[in-house]
């Protein structure tokens, strides 16, 4: 298992390198010159040339990439082209926000999808299943920006229970932190719960048709035991995979939701950086997101063994 873990970790390095090359190339392919965006509409050609030189944009692409890479291995992602602040510091500021929001959203998603998925599978093709299916499909098709605004309207304007936006760190004021993150987490959690419910329903339905489940029933086990001890464990693997993908997606920054609730997370940092062609910030954020996604899928792989003892790593 340890060997497997180490091998997986090492094999991720080339993948991450390729990610950085692709991102670097993509940003460079984008039209729009960072110096022009910084200096704006009224910039003179001399000022533009001067700024390009001081930002190092006049060097060759390879030089720019290599000097970035040399810094990145030391966790120094350079400084933002916009305001000269350290990219590592910006990431350190935003990552905990997005991390907390993602975990909170996935917790809500689990609280909804586990019971809903099991109920749907056990009572499949009854009215309970149909209602849950309808809700799940609505959840999948409801866009985040609409659900977010709806929640703000209901809970912040009509009922005035929860502030419409803002962020306080968990260490500063845990109560307020959770309160402020509740609506965005619900917004994200509902969408992901809808997807996970469908996954769990289909994999559990399939498992419930297996011979060993019939045998368990025949042995005289209670339905509850059959489902939790025998069927659910086997049905969880596809569910875990989907869970990992959802969590990974959120860690890359929930751009729209962060925008609606004014959460200063990864997504907004990235969007602002893309609009100003702030390459060092884009590179740093994408690399860290890629690492996060990799770590999540790595942990999901390891968790398969815990769920299904037949799985062994070599």
């Amino acid at each position, binding site marked *: 298992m340890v060997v497997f873990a180490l091998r997986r970790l090492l094999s991720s390095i080339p993948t991450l390198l390729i990610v950085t090359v692709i991102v670097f190339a993509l940003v460079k392919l984008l039209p729009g*010159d960072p110096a022009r965006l910084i200096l704006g509409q*009224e910039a003179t050609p001399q000022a533009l040339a001067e700024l390009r030189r001081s930002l190092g944009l006049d060097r060759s692409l390879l030089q720019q990439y290599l000097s970035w890479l040399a810094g990145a291995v030391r966790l120094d992602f350079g400084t933002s082209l916009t305001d000269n602040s350290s990219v590592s510091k910006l990431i350190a500021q935003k990552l905990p926000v997005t991390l907390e929001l993602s975990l909170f959203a996935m917790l809500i998603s689990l609280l909804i999808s586990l019971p809903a998925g099991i109920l749907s599978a056990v009572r499949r093709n009854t009215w309970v299943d149909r209602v849950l299916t309808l809700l799940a499909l609505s959840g999948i098709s409801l866009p985040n920006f609409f659900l977010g605004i709806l929640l*703000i309207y209901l809970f912040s304007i009509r009922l005035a*229970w929860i502030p419409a936006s803002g962020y306080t760190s968990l260490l500063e004021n845990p109560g307020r932190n959770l309160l402020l993150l509740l609506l965005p987490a619900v917004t994200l959690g509902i969408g992901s719960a809808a997807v996970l419910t469908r996954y769990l329903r289909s994999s559990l339905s399939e498992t419930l048709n297996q011979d060993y489940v019939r045998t368990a029933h025949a042995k005289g086990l209670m339905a509850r035991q059959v489902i939790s001890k025998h069927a659910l464990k086997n049905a969880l693997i596809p569910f875990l995979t989907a869970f990992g993908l959802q969590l990974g997606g959120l860690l890359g920054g929930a751009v729209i939701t962060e925008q609606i609730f004014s959460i200063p997370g990864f997504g907004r940092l990235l969007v602002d950086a893309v609009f100003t062609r702030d390459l060092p910030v884009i590179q740093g954020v994408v690399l860290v997101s890629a690492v996060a996604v990799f770590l999540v899928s790595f942990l999901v792989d390891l968790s398969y063994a815990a769920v299904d003892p037949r799985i062994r790593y070599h």
Partner: protein
Amino acid sequence: MRKLPLTRSLILLGLSLSCAASAQTLTVGLDADPPRLDPALSTALVDRQVMNQIFDKLVDLDADLKVIPALAASWKVTNGGLTYTFKLRSGVKFSDGTPLDAAAVKYGLDRNRTLEGSARKNEMTSIKEVKVVDAQTVQLTLSQPYGPLLAVLTDRAGMIVSPTAAKKAGADFQNNPVGSGPFTFVSRVRQDNITLNANKTYWGGAPKIDKLVYRPFPDGDVRYANLLSGAVQAITPIDPKDISKLEQNAKFNVLNYPGIGFQGVWFNVTRAPFNNKNLRQAVAATIDREAIAKSIFYGTVTPAAGPFPPGTAAASSAIKVQKPDIAAAKKKLGGKPLSFTLLTTPGSVTTQLAQVYQAMFAQAGITAKIEQVEFGTLLDRADKQDYDALMLGWSGRPDPDGNIYDFFVTNGTNNQAGYSNKTVDSLLAKARAQNAMSARVATYNIALSTIISDTPYTWVYFQRNLVASVKGMTGLKPIPDGILRFKDVDLK
């Protein structure tokens, strides 16, 4: 501040203390996160909202766009407009305790006009030397007379930074700005907030509120929702569609006052089809400016006849808003088909506007294809003159020069059309060198009649400043430059 969370259930208990303690905090919702809080480096309009509270300027503007004293208590223009002598207020200190004297003003002005990457160089290029005469007197010598100078100094170019703080922070000054303004910088979290405290020892008297917080909400609906929910006490701008709802809401005040900028369409005169003046005029003649103001902007903009909005010095009643005239447009086309690409940025208003233009052009048989690219690309394509027509406006400057010179002078920094006309060049240069505003205005309007007839640009509407605030907020003066000055603002 807001009462709502105070009365609510247990989970909100923790909140009540922090709210009660910040009773005099005013939170303002802006449409973007101000990128750079350094008077030399700033290029975004929204930077000025925050910097105006942190920094004092040599001179300021009043509601009629007249230049009024600020750090300079008085000034004299001599030597045929080549020498500007400013007498400074005495006893002014930066918020770091260092004195704001003539040496500091010299440092600030020199920094703005020479710092590497400074965006002020263009507007300060006429300044040859800044001289300290005595501790309270600064003298600016110009290389040529430059009528707009005072107006330029009411904006970022005239903001004076603390030399001690600027030297110490270097390139990081924008993240730790220190000035002498009515508020002092406390902290910023990118994409979340910028927090300022009242400067209790401000030379013009301490502000009435204790704390001023700016928060960015790029989406208009979100900005509006935050105002309704009490998370912020004021927002600017307001989406035009929300104006009437806010005006009918007894809890809020709406300020709707003229701005100094303009919006319209550029024609690329360096290549076909718009190197043909008749075709430019034909397109301009199809636009129904009144209808656009009504249908897209709910009357929150004013149809435009030229670059000078009503109420500004150079606005002339002799130049009338062009009425749509499809017959005239068809005649200009001479029976030949015209099709071109209209370049614009994405966004609900620009998209709608582009589609309305498209429909208006079509009435004269003109086919326009809409191409949407984001702002950086638009500027890039404009620089390279790689477009047929493009939608781009200007936030405006208090002096008429700032709304015309760089747009139409040959090779001007904002001359996206590639337009060049010797008569216009010499008139615009002549106006700059004139000192009496009345003489300058006359010259601008002569130049403008040629520009309108050449039509490298067609003006469509003037933006207005739209601010919404809670009823309890008082003391905000409507200054046309759109910058909200919070020194005298109170919150009850």
